[in-house]
Every structure is written in structure tokens, then in C-alpha cells.
């Protein structure tokens, strides 16, 4: 592979959030794009690849990739609308890196925007998926009559993990506490007041064993990421962040099909990303993990190899995930406290890039050189892993 075509992230942008009633979903895409262009120095006309998932009118509408490309005025020769839920953006990173290496395109833009909070309020996790007396087609018909909710799916994984490994509610709570500590450093985080393990386990039970504070926030927000070649990055504004290893894996889609409720596709998508990057979990300085719920983080940590399967509870209780610990987690405040507009994957990439550029302000992990972003889409279903580095491979 030519070093000149090594894929690098050169631009990032966040739209307004976490509460932005003045923006609709498309405007979130637009604001984030504009800020990523300003950040990078990339000229809009140089973008020749585009990816987005669930763009535009509704966060649940996966079918408007081409309309978004039209709206933004992207003349692409490479397009990706993979829609696997919140981890779609880590899958985009995998696909875009390959396309750039291969010369199918030179500069890829990915955008995301959602006005979930301002449009729908806070009911995503516990409103059910279907209308009253609806007739539900397809594989979802086998779950529809039973009244499960989004949170219930993750709760069943947590329940099984507790059963098999003795994981405790207090251990899961530590994840929320660590992420809130980081949110306190981010003026744009939705919730910034410190919380304790006791606050989490005494918050209202939503779906046993998950409490309210085990669950992510609902917000508005948007983001944009620009990836290009190492060669082109030389003329741009920011130090390039190298895309060292990427991988994706799927174990199921609907939660009732999850083959092992204590394990995710991160086992495969982690091993493959590490192999491609030529690094190990011990080399990683900070992780940006999909924290839809505390259990999501615990499973990803184990499956990625940061601790043995079943040891996640003890690992997080050691304080490893806090700034100053061995593996600071979600230094922007994560989905648990900062931003979750329905799909969070792009924010994982953006925060990893900020860390590696050493632009994370008071949440900076000293000397951060290797960062891992891992998204979980669906119901622990589709896992995408992206390993990023400050130095060329």
C-alpha cells in the first residue's frame, strides 16, 4: 500500500447541542459540515465521497442518502448508506478507509444530524416500537406482541451477565459515574453535576436491572467527519489522525436472536481491528465506546479484550475508566451524560480525533497517541471498531 494513500481523518465538526430547537435534522448536517470544512481547510468541491445513515426528516428513516447528497451538493463518485443503527459511522470509517486506499475516491465526508429531543421528546427508550393494535410484518412480528422496549433488550443482556459472572448493579453504575465526571468538564454536555454509585442504583428502575441513570440521555445533535489521504492532509490545517485498523461484525439484529447475551460482535470486530492496526489493547490510551447503556460499555470492554470475559465488573470498579485511570472512557461525557440524538457513532470518532490532536481541553488524556472507537448498533447487534493513531503506521 502506498503511504501517500494512507487514510487519515482531517476534519471534524459538531453542530449545536445538546438542546437545539433552532435546528432541524437537515440543518444539523449542514452546521456540522460547515464546521468540519472550517476545521480542516478542505474545500467543499474536493469532497468526492459521501456517507450518511438515517439522514434528514427522521432519525429512523434510512432511505434518504441520495436526497441528503443532493441537498448538501456533493458530487460523489463513491457513496455509502450502510444503516446498522448507531454504529453505522464506524462501518463508514471501515468502508471509506478501504475506498480511499483503493483510489475509488480521495476525500470522504460523513454527516449526521438529529433533532430527536426537540422533535420527539425523551421517549425513545421506553415507548415500544409499534403502534397500538398494529399488524407487524417481517421478523419483528415475533417480538411485537410482547411489549418489549429498547431498554428491555439491553436489560436482558445485563441480567444474563449478572447471572453468569456475578456482575453487580454497583459495578455497572461506576461506568455512569466515570462518564459523568468527564461530562462535568464539557460545557456542552447535557448533564454535568457529579453523581455517585448510590445515585445510580437508587434511581428509578426502568427495566430490571437497568436504572434510569444506567441509560443514555436523549438530545439533539449532529456531526461531520472528513477523511482523505495522508498526501492531501499535508496541505490542510490540522495534524492528520491515521486510520490504523477498522472492522465490523454482526451477531444478530433483533434482541431475541442474540446468540450469547453476554457477548457481542466486538470480539470479532476488535480482534480484526487490532490485527490490522498492529497494536494490542494494552497500547490504547483512551476508548470512546458506545454507551447507550452501562451494560453496553461493559460488554464492549470485555469483548475488545481490555479485560477477560466476565471480569468487566471488577475492571470498571477499579476506576480504570476515569481520567487519570489506565483507560479513560468517553472523555466528552458520552451518551450517558453528554449527547445521544438517536445514533451516537459519529461522536465517538470525533472525540477520539480531538484526543489524538490533543485538543480535548481539560478532558485531555496526557500524551494520547492511540484511541479506539467502538460503536454498537441495533440491540448489541452490529459492532464497528475503529483504531486511530497520532503517528503514521
Amino acid at each position, binding site marked *: 500500500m502506498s503511504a501517500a494513500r494512507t487514510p487519515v481523518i482531517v476534519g471534524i465538526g459538531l453542530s449545536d447541542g445538546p438542546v437545539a430547537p433552532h435546528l432541524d435534522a437537515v440543518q444539523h448536517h449542514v452546521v456540522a459540515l460547515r464546521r468540519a470544512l472550517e476545521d480542516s481547510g478542505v474545500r467543499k468541491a474536493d469532497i468526492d465521497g459521501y456517507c450518511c445513515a438515517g439522514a434528514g426528516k427522521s432519525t429512523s428513516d434510512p432511505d434518504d442518502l441520495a436526497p441528503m447528497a443532493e441537498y448538501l451538493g456533493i458530487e460523489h463518485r463513491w457513496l455509502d448508506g450502510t444503516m446498522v443503527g448507531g454504529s453505522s459511522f464506524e462501518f463508514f470509517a471501515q468502508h471509506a478507509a478501504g475506498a480511499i486506499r483503493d483510489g475509488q475516491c480521495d476525500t470522504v465526508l460523513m454527516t449526521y444530524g438529529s433533532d430527536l429531543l426537540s422533535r420527539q421528546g425523551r421517549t425513545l427508550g421506553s415507548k415500544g416500537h409499534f*403502534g397500538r393494535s398494529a399488524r407487524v410484518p417481517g421478523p419483528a412480528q415475533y417480538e411485537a406482541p410482547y411489549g418489549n422496549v429498547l431498554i428491555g433488550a439491553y436489560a436482558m443482556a445485563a441480567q444474563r451477565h449478572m447471572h453468569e459472572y456475578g456482575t453487580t448493579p454497583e459495578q455497572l453504575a461506576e461506568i455512569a459515574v466515570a462518564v459523568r465526571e468527564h461530562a462535568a468538564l464539557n460545557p456542552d454536555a447535557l448533564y454535568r453535576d457529579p453523581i455517585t454509585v448510590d445515585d445510580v442504583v437508587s434511581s428509578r428502575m426502568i427495566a430490571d436491572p437497568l436504572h434510569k441513570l444506567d441509560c443514555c440521555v436523549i438530545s439533539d445533535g449532529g456531526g461531520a467527519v472528513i477523511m482523505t489521504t495522508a498526501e492531501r492532509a499535508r496541505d490542510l490545517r490540522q495534524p492528520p489522525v491515521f486510520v490504523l485498523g477498522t472492522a465490523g461484525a454482526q451477531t444478530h439484529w433483533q434482541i431475541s436472536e442474540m446468540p450469547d447475551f453476554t457477548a457481542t460482535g466486538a470480539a470479532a470486530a476488535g480482534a480484526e481491528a487490532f490485527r490490522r492496526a498492529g497494536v494490542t489493547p494494552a497500547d490504547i490510551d483512551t476508548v470512546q465506546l458506545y454507551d447507550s447503556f452501562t451494560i453496553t460499555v461493559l460488554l464492549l470492554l470485555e469483548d475488545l479484550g481490555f479485560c477477560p470475559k466476565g471480569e468487566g465488573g471488577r475492571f470498571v470498579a477499579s476506576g480504570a475508566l476515569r481520567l487519570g485511570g489506565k483507560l479513560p472512557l468517553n472523555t466528552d461525557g458520552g451518551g450517558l451524560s453528554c449527547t445521544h440524538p438517536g445514533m451516537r457513532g459519529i461522536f465517538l470518532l470525533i472525540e477520539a480525533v480531538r484526543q489524538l490532536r490533543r485538543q480535548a481541553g481539560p478532558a485531555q488524556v496526557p500524551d494520547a497517541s492511540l484511541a479506539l472507537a467502538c460503536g454498537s448498533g441495533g440491540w448489541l447487534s452490529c459492532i464497528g471498531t475503529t483504531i486511530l493513531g497520532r503517528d503514521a503506521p
Partner: protein
Amino acid sequence: MNPDPAGGTTDDVAASLGRRPLPLPDNVSGPYWEAAARGEVLYQECPACGHRQLYPRALCTACAVEPEWRRASGRGSVHTFTVIRQNWAEPFRELAPYVVAIVELEEGPRMMTNVTGCAPEDVHIGMPVEAYTIAVEEGLGVPFWRPASID
């Protein structure tokens, strides 16, 4: 029917079923829902490789051969579960708290269901359960599970 101090008796399930989201039977799922209307739970078994599966599909997920229907014994155990305490959608809002579970049939395949007929607090992983079905209309019944009766 099984009285239940915490709600969720089989009577309550039957009363709410017509207002729940229900399956839209198709070419493959039709026999499954028809069987439930007759009081049976079906699963699929591959005539070529022996793989057993739910949900029903037009192919064996192991080898792609067309699977055959088998009648389940109706005995199983709770693989994992949660107690839903908040669901804003009717009719579930008024039914909460209720148990959503993954039940493993003794034949192997798993399915999502509600475990009814006992207090949510009494449900645990590994709990023996038995299937029952409620008919909604001609050709459409829905399987549920409850604590196994003691023989």
C-alpha cells in the same frame, strides 16, 4: 386461570391481546400463528443438517435448506428476562410492571415472550416454564409462557 397479586394473569393477557401490536402472518409465518391458534407452539428443524431454529424462516440458517415444522413439547426454561416498568405505549402502559423474557424451548430454539401467572419478582433465570397460547382470531394465536405446573 392463575391469579397473580402483581397483575399479569393469563386473563389479563387475553384481555389486552387485541390491543397489542400483533403479527401480520405471511407465507412462512402463517403455519406458526395458525398452530398457536390451535394451542401449539412450533419450531423448525432442518431435514438436511438437523439444525433447529426460531424465528421461522424460509431457509435453515446453517445450510440454507428449506426447514420443516416440528411441534414443541411446550416445556422450556427462562434464559434471560427483564421486568418492564415503563412503556409509554398502550396497552402496555397499564400492564407494567410485566416480564419480557427469552425462553429456551427444551428442544433448543429460543423465543421472546411474556412470562405470566406469577409475580415479576418470582421470575428467575433457569426457571422451568410451560407454554400456553391465546387465540386472537381465526388462524392467529399468540404463545405465552407461565411457571411450569408441578406434576
